[in-house]
């Protein structure tokens, strides 16, 4: 049905857009302009064209940071979705104490990130933390040390901690999606002889596509712009081993390379845009099926 009457409903996006325009788009246009200058945050800015962008791709540290970021996202985004979905399916089943269980799952998000990093350190710090002592008692101290000291595995630690902390958030969206599926559909499927895995495949999954789409997109964005988890656990270190692009941007911004940092932010935007567009295209095709 096509609606060509114009009424109040036409303008319903305006309040949100107005707020967004004032507090995001307007400062953004100013910010983007800085990417073509050599502004250092204090002295007068000079227009330098695309030099910032060229410089980025010549910087070894920047290329390393892209690699780190992609590696993190590749591990984190799919895992977050799977774990979130698993949590949601568990919490959707008919069990007692669901309310309390859900609240507990959100608890990690209530603890201020300022402290979170410290708590993780108490748990995971090599040769001092709780996990180390646990492993030591089991006679596995050396393998634990090797595991946490290596670059690739410290990335693994970061990914696991990230999944642990944000799985509850992914779960919330899936849970809402699950609740929106009419019970009749399951019953109908049951009548047709489909149960368990089959009804999940043919009833739950297709109807969950809107939630999947939301979660995939937000997790891709969240993982590729990861900042606080890495900052509080490793500070991007040792050296630059686990530095993500967001941390790089922040350091450049405060390191008197304000213009350059905005250029990197724009590059990061395109880096995120590609996988997001792909996943949106994929989920759109699925929902039309």
């Amino acid at each position, binding site marked *: 049905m096509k609606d060509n009457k114009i009424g109040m409903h036409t303008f319903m996006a305006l309040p949100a857009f107005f707020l967004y325009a004032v507090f995001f*788009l307007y400062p953004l246009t100013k910010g983007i302009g800085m990417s073509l*200058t050599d*502004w250092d945050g*204090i002295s*007068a800015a000079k*227009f330098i064209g695309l030099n910032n962008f060229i410089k980025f791709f010549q910087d070894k540290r920047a290329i390393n940071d892209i690699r780190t970021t992609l590696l993190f996202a590749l591990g984190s985004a799919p895992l977050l979705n799977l774990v979130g979905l698993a949590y949601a399916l568990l919490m959707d089943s008919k069990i007692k104490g669901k309310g309390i269980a859900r609240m507990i799952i959100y608890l990690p998000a209530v603890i201020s990130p300022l402290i979170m990093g410290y708590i993780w*350190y108490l748990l995971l*710090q090599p040769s*001092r933390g709780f996990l180390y002592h646990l492993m030591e008692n089991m006679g596995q101290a050396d393998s634990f040390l090797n595991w946490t000291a290596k670059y690739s595995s410290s990335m693994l630690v970061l990914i696991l901690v990230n999944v642990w902390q944000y799985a509850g958030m992914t779960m919330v969206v899936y849970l809402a999606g699950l609740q929106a599926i009419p019970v009749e559909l399951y019953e109908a499927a049951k009548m047709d002889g489909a149960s368990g895995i089959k009804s999940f495949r043919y009833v739950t999954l297709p109807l969950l596509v809107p939630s999947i789409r939301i979660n995939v997109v937000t997790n891709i964005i969240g993982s590729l712009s990861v900042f606080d988890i890495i900052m509080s656990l490793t500070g991007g270190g*040792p050296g630059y081993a686990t530095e993500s692009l967001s941390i790089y941007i922040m350091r450049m911004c405060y390191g008197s390379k304000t213009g350059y940092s905005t250029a990197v932010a724009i590059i990061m935007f395109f880096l995120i845009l590609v996988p997001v567009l792909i996943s949106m295209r994929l989920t759109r095709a699925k929902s039309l099926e």
Partner: protein
Amino acid sequence: MKRKKLVSVLLCVTLCVTMLLGCGSNSTDNTGNNENGAAASDSEAAASASTASTDTATQEHVTLKFFTGKIETIDVINEIINDFNASQDHITVEQEYQKDASNIIKIKFAADQAPDIMTTYEKGFLDEGKYMDISDQSQWWDRLTPTMKDLCTDITSGNQYRVCTNMTMAGIFYNKDIFNELGLEVAYTWDDFISNLETIKTNMPDVTPFFIFGNEAWHLGHLIEFLPQGYIKATYGTVAAETAFMNNDKSILNYGAADGAMAVFAQNLLDMQANGLINADVLTATSDNCIQDFANGKAAMFSNGMWCLSSILEANPAMESSIGFAPYPAYMEGSNAVILSAEDSGYCISSETKYKDEVIEFMNFLFRADNQKKYSETLKAPSAFTDVEAAWASATIVDEVSNALSSATNIGFTNSKPAGFSGDDAGRLVQELLAGNYTAAEFAEAFEYNWDEGMK
């Protein structure tokens, strides 16, 4: 119906116009370098408008913004501010504390919102004219020790842009009980220093001879500051060294040379790591770990500033008489042992403040001998005012410190670091070194490269 259509069209048009305007301002930013100027004049106008309105509204009542990143002093400064606010009725001072003050201040400057008084200081901002010249405030300078006045003097102009009220020292903290037990003496040369560490390692296998908390980049940055750069500062003297840092004078800095102070420092560090003289978890150890291990006799020595004294005493109040303090041993041929003796608690006044007289009035109050005594005792740092007698630490520690100061060349902080290569950045390079990603020579080259890049 028609009217509704009209409204919608109008709305769309305004929307497009605003968006085009956004793009328009964007393109002017790109073509000219007036973006900064425009932003500045905008907010200046706003600022003057707001001050004008407050002037008319409350007749001469002035509010001063005091910006600090020094958490240890929040309470005592608040106490002094409250006394001041109560002592007169035309000025109110407000303190703003920020955990990340040195970064936050950059944003404040960039947005033209400098506080009236700030405890952060950077040579780059000085060169941009952000600080007020306070050379004429003789009521402060006459009371300050001459060394402190020198430390507060900008070497480019010879003027003073900040006033520092306290001294701080950094060197090697050592456990006197362990030294006595093993019959060790404070080392002034690198060989003696290493042999001390070896003795501790052989005789006390459970004790870390030298603790480095390399998880915190600032600490490793300080090692660079005190050892290789300390060598430069001690060898050429403060003024010549600062000038060389500022102008990137490679004949003096000599960072990249394979036998230079930077490469030798890196090699020494790698040797210590290879020989097990430092903690094995150097890359993940934190300052808290270091303090705890030292306070519990599990670490014999570490490098840090006097600012960590209160943390040690909090972790183990009984330790006071066992804390020793020594200079950094000489590690280059023909050099001296060095110790940091530098300025602490510096205050700058914004060059754009509209209330210069009021700021001075407040600072006169803050610098009164009684207030400074209280301040120094809270901070646990000796006062730089000649007329302030503060009991900043116990007599044994004061003795240790003054012995250490007189036995080595005193150096200051490097104030003229490149804007794009901070002490933390240097520390992260050292992390790479300790992680095995560089040889000593490669590290020296990488350091030089990053320093040069940061200069641009």
